[in-house]
Each structure stands twice: as C-alpha cells, then as structure tokens.
C-alpha cells in the first residue's frame, strides 16, 4: 500500500497522471487517499456534502484495469475530483445545499459527470454550496444547509460562494479539481478567496444537463483547479454540445494555448482605478504587483472603462425573475421558509412579483451590454481586473460590507455581473495575499476565447508561485 506525503494532495493533474502511468501507485490507492482526506478534513471547512467512496473505489478499479492493459484515456485518467452538490449523481442525494431538498435523489448522472468519468476521472464526493446557489440574494455566508463555507486559509473567514465547498476543497488538497457553477460570481469569488485557479467558461460551452437551474440564461458550469493548465485540461473534457441542454452552444473546446497569438500582438484592457481606489487599501500592494507581472509580459495596453449600464439592476432582475420561476413550486408550497437565510427566502418570494415588462426590459438592456462588449473586444483581447477587490470577509459579517465601497471611477469594477450578462469566459488566478488571505486577479475575454485566457494564465503562473502556496495546517 502506497504511503502518500502531503505533496501528493497538492499535485497537478499532469503530475499525478504521469505517476499513475508509471505505476508509482494505483488509482485505487490514490482514490482511497483522497477519500480519506475529504471525509476527515472536509467537515472542518463545511465543505463536504457527501462522500462517494463506494463509487470512487469501483471506478478506480476500472482505471487500474485500463492502466494495466495500457489503455490510456488522457490526462484525467485516474484523477480524483469532486462536484458541487447541484449536479446529479444517479441514486445519490442531490441537495442543492438546501434543507427542503435534503432527500432528493435523481436516477441519472449530470452530463459533466458522464464526460469526466468517460475520460477516466474518479468522482470522490459532492461538495457543499450556498443553498440554491444563492438565487434569492443571500446576505450571510451561513446561507447553506451545511453551514457557512469556511476558508482553509483562516477558518474565521468565508470560502466564498456559491461554490463554497469547491473552492475550499481544492485549496485544502481534498480533491485535485472540483466542478462548480457560476450565475454571477460563484466561481470567481471562491477561487479568489481560497487562492485557487477558477475558470468560468463561455455560456453554452459546458452542458448543464443534470445541474440545478437557477437562471436559464446565465448559469454556467466551470472548474476550480490548481493551475490554469489544469483548467484547460478539464474544460477540454467537459465542454461540447448536448441536445439535453437548450443553452448548449454545440461547441467543443480543445486546449491549445500554444496556438494563441504572440503576446506582443494582444491588447490588454485595464482600468488603473481597479488597482487603486476600487481595491481595499491593504490589498493594493499585492494587486499592483500582480498587475506589474502581467504588464511585463509584453502586451499592448489600453485603458478602458465599462460603459455606463445598471449592471446590478439588470443582473438582479434576471436572476430573481428566472430563479423565482424555477422555484415557484417551492415558494407556493411554503417549503421555501425552511431555507437557512431569511433574505434568500424573501428574495425568492419577491422575485415572483417581478412584472414581465421589467424582466423583458432587463433582457433588452442586456442586449445592449452584449453589443458594447462586442465593440470593446474589437480593440482589446483580454480585460484584467482584480477578481474581488479585497480578501474573504469574516464568516459572521453581512456580505457587501467593507471593501465593497463604490469608488468614483467605474473602471472594470462591475465586470463580474457585466461579464456574466454577456456570457463571457473568465479565469481567476491566485495573485498574492492580504493579511494571510489570498487574492485573485481575473482575465476576461470574448466568447469562446478560453485558450487566450489560459495562455496568459499559464504564463502568469510560470512567473509566480501563488498557485503553489498551501494553506497552513490543512489536515
């Protein structure tokens, strides 16, 4: 039986896959080690929703059989992963992080899980999340059936949401990579707060079949990983058309950062205010340094600012109207009152009262936002801004407090709601610390240009080692 040191839990996909192929250890041994760690340490961060050890061991045995026969299925073969508990696994509970759905069981696997298992990856568990992905507008990190997501870097801090468990589990080495979802910030935020690399793919790139719906026009499935490289490898497997998802773009992603244009021919758009008055004062030195590293890569630079749109009102109206329509039976039946967060309950109820004309007006303004991004991306290839403008908040703190004060200049500050409205891809990279807490910088590009973001991210991670840092005492 292989003895694993701490390093194994912080290895990348390529590193682990190479060692599996060399038979340094078996897929079963690796899966068992990750299951042990997930079961033992996951609850410490309120990150574990459900261990799937039985499935993992069966799958790992199949992988070992394949490896023995030299049937190599690609870089994810034998790699342990875990998923946000909004994805269905046949015959296992899928709670959506919400008490009213605690006993819910589906009889099919989500497409993403089918694809990953087809590539030989080993599903070890389901990860905690903010209840119903926060669609009603939660105000406290405690808005989850499993309690607030705790940050492995400091358990008095939030791990971010709504993919709380996905961020914490990757940061603490409980899984090699995790699947999360984003409607507006749910991958970018935990990736930044937990110091991991997060990829929100273009809307429609990854099938949502088997995923809880919150906003049909905004939901996206993505990955939280150790590196930009790992994000590329995982997206390659989970992308692709799916007739079972009406939002599917019918496109497959091939990870090929080597074919991206020379950086000297790319233009990066940025707003100086993002790294100054928009950011928390204590975070500015690290964010400025990260921005300096990117500038030194040789891009053409252009100062930009998001056009003046009511991003918050448009995003809020669309998510509330669609989310309340999704959960109308829960609201009408009164079970909504069993949710953990009062603001979330109220938000879902109020969302049912949004008139059609307001929803449609929001969708019409959204079209203008998309048009403006198309114009912006004629001259600019990548937008760069802090993923969040300060570190993780305290667990008991009301969200949207300190560090979120509105500065005079808009800059790219609203890029999370704006980018989500336009369905744009985004990559969050760990970029330093503020008081021992991780910070992230994000790259946003035009639809289906993930390879450009990943190439820049890979270069950034060759020049820095923030993505290699580990939280103290993770076991």
């Amino acid at each position, binding site marked *: 039986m292989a003895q694993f040191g701490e390093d194994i839990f912080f290895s990348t996909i390529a590193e682990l896959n190479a060692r599996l192929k060399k038979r340094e250890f078996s897929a079963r041994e690796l899966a068992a080690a990750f299951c042990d760690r997930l079961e033992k340490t996951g609850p410490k961060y309120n990150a574990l929703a459900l261990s799937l050890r039985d499935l993992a061991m069966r799958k790992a045995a199949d992988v070992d059989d394949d490896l023995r026969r030299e049937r190599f299925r690609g870089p994810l073969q034998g790699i342990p992963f875990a998923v946000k508990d909004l994805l269905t696994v046949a015959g296992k509970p899928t709670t959506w992080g919400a008490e009213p759905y605690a006993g819910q069981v589906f009889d099919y696997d989500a497409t993403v899980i089918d694809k990953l298992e087809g590539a030989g990856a080993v599903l070890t568990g389901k990860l905690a999340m903010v209840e119903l992905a926060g669609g*009603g*507008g939660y105000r406290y990190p405690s808005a989850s059936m499993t309690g607030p997501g705790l940050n492995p870097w400091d358990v008095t801090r939030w791990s971010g949401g709504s993919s709380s468990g996905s961020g914490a589990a990757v940061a603490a080495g409980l899984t090699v990579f995790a699947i999360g979802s984003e409607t507006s910030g749910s991958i970018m935020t935990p990736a930044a707060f937990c110091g991991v690399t997060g990829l929100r793919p*273009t*809307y*429609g790139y990854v099938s949502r079949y088997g995923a809880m719906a919150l906003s049909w*026009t*905004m939901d996206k499935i993505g990955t939280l990983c150790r590196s930009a490289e790992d994000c590329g490898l995982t997206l390659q497997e989970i992308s692709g058309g799916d007739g079972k998802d*009406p*939002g599917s*773009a019918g496109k497959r992603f091939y990870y090929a950062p080597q074919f991206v244009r020379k950086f000297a021919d790319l233009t990066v758009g940025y707003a100086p205010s993002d790294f100054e008055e928009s950011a928390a004062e204590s975070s500015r030195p690290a964010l400025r340094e990260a921005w300096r590293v990117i500038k030194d890569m040789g891009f053409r630079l252009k100062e930009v600012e998001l056009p003046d*749109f*009511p991003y*918050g*009102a*448009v995003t*809020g*109206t669309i998510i*509330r109207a669609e989310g309340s329509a999704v959960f109308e039976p829960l609201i009408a039946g009164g079970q909504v009152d069993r949710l953990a967060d*009062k*603001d979330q*309950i*109220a*938000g879902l*109820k*109020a*969302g049912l*009262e*949004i*008139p059609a*004309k*307001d929803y*449609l*007006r*929001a*969708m*019409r*303004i*959204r*079209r*203008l936002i*998309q048009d403006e991004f198309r114009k912006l991306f004629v001259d600019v290839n990548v937008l760069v801004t802090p993923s969040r403008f300060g570190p993780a908040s305290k667990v008991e703190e009301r969200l949207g407090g300190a560090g979120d004060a509105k500065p005079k200049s808009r800059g790219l500050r609203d890029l999370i709601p704006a980018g989500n409205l*336009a*369905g*744009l891809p985004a990559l969050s990279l760990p970029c330093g610390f503020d008081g021992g807490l991780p910070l992230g910088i994000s790259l946003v590009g035009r*639809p*289906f240009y993930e390879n450009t973001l990943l190439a820049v991210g890979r270069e950034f991670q060759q020049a820095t080692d923030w993505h290699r840092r580990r939280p103290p005492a993770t076991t």
Partner: protein
Amino acid sequence: MRAAYTRREVGAALLAAAPALAAVPPQQETKAQDPLEEARRSVREAAGELAAFPLEMSKEPSFVFKP
C-alpha cells in the same frame, strides 16, 4: 418615441406597484427591516433603475440567449 409611454404602459407600471404598495401601510415603511418588504423594495428600486435607462423601442431581447 412618445408611443413607448402610452397609458397602457403607465397603467401597467401602476398595477405592478399596486400590490406592493397595498401590502405595506405607510407607517410600516419606517419600521425595522422586514426581509420581504426589504426584498420588494429592492425589486422596486431595480425596476426604477431599469425604467430610467433609455432604450429604443426596436431593441429586442434575445429569448434564446447566445453569447
């Protein structure tokens, strides 16, 4: 452009606001935050922001959203 603000639209806006207004007697507006009233207020504020944004009549939403 004036046709965009017909009596029908004004009437619809008033109707939309009516249930929320009826549900909240004025004296309660100043009381401590009832989460539902807070959420309704937030929805109304968002609607106000959307209504204030200039929009051409011809601008159509994308019902099958594609990025």
